[in-house]
């Protein structure tokens, strides 16, 4: 069971997720402090560790649009959040897969903050409302990277194979 801790609309940009003014901070160990920095209340809840790992952010279309900044993925990965959206912007989705941030594409998802979700194979069940919603598979080219545990591990395998 995973709780919906934040419900967002369409076109949530990387400037919302990780504002540009914090981009000089690059290390995945340091970026989580600025997650949703302009969303002061949610940012404070994260930093106070009130939100459990595995909790869910639900968004509309085009989540993560905008910049290629990887901080937008690492800042959410730092809290082990799960992002369920109707669809994702390309670079954000790739960064998430590369870093191991869990993303779920669910075009018809209906939830409210506080609802409990269950991830069951190719669907998401909202156990609060009793409704189930189909999920779409991630781009097939990317599954191998997830299976390897992220792009660093995947690339390392390739380097070893090269010699």
């Amino acid at each position, binding site marked *: 069971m995973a709780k919906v801790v934040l419900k967002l609309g369409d076109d949530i940009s990387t400037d919302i997720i990780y504002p540009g003014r914090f981009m000089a901070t690059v290390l995945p160990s340091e970026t989580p402090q600025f997650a949703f920095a*302009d969303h002061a209340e949610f940012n404070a809840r994260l930093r106070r560790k009130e939100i459990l790992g595995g909790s869910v952010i639900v968004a509309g279309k085009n989540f993560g649009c905008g910049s290629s900044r990887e901080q937008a993925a690492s800042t959410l990965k730092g809290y082990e959040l799960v992002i369920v959206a109707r*669809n994702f912007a390309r670079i954000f989705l790739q960064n998430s897969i590369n870093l191991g941030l869990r993303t779920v594409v669910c075009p018809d998802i209906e939830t409210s903050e506080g609802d409990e979700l269950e991830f069951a194979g190719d669907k998401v069940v909202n156990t609060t409302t009793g409704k189930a919603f189909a999920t779409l598979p991630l781009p097939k080219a990317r599954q191998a990277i997830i299976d390897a545990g992220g792009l660093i591990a995947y690339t390392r395998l390739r380097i070893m194979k090269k010699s």
Partner: protein
Amino acid sequence: MGMTMVEKILAGATHRPFVKAGDVVEPEVGMAMSHENAALVINQFREVFKDTGKEAKVWDPSRIAIIFDHRVPAESSKTATNQKRIREFVAAQGITKFHDIRGDEGGICHQILPESGYVLPGKVVVGTDSHTTSHGALGAFAFGIGATEMASVWALGVVLNVEVPLTIKVVAKGRFPKYVMPKDFILHLIGKISAEGANFKVLEFHGPAFKNMPTSGRLTVCNMSVEAGATSGIVPPDEETLRYLREEAKVKGKIEVFGPDPDASYDKVIEIDVSKLEPQVACPHTVDNVKPVRKVVGIKINQVVIGSCTNGRLDDLAVAAKIVKGKKVARGTRMLVFPASYKIYKQALNAGYLADFIKAGAVVMNPGCGPCLGVHQGALGDGEVALATTNRNFKGRMGNPNAEVYLASPAVAAASALKGVITDPRKGGR
């Protein structure tokens, strides 16, 4: 069945006779570009080699370009330290296509790459910047990637597991009316298909309006293709591409020129008659919230920004300078001008444009990204409104979530600076 422009490039970069949308390929990289976020790439690059017993050497230092532009000169000690680390890495790895904070070679990455001849048609270009799509203007397949993906490229020289994208063909007919610019075309297209209308796809640009468009305008259009979600924008190379590469970028070697096959398969075709276009404005807080300027004239603006990787080229500055020459920027409105590179800065200086700006009351800044990403050089106050020739108007973009950003062409921006309100250049300009 034939291939689209990008399918052909990916076939070439993987030494295959044929690829089609949906195939998974690992293309060789022609150019790999980063800016200040190379600091993170370096970190991830070292992680990749950790415990492998191998030396962390980049695959080919001549195919890596690093340009400082996002925070120049450094706005904080943290940035200055990142830049210092990058300089050390560049020296240790023998990377020569490095553009430091210098008046003889500095500028914005998406201008430095084209003007330095680092981008060639038919090649794969990746950059740790979403606006890497710009380089499709020269017929390359250019797309943005994250820092970890770049670390993987630096190690291997290929992009791993790329799914060949579908392509949307965009045909632009007619001639641009006066004061209607390539920026208006791309804003109109984004408004029409939405901020996710080309998600995971390529926009391939055709038609007489593109044949007659200088490379500067093609760079504007391809630059903002990502704002429709596109993986890349691309203009098949032609005489203008060759002219730009030979005359302006001083490319000496062989340039391979090919277009898509006539029987290529497209996801869909969109036709736009540019002769019917009006100046466009993207309203807060999404780039696809596009309206003709006549619907927003009169909105008070506190800051005008002309420049960026979208609209900081000589043609853009020329249009703006002609509008403000001999006039004054309205009191209560700040006008900031950022040429896209020092080469352009010098050209604009020699042409008298910079003097026109300064005499009108504008502030001419050093080439770089300026306030576009909200770090420095022109943050907005609470409740303030900016009109910028940049590419994003997301909430908080120019450094303040309690401010608003409108996006428009250099003509709309310059005309608006004179009046202090959003102005139709066909009426407010000269």
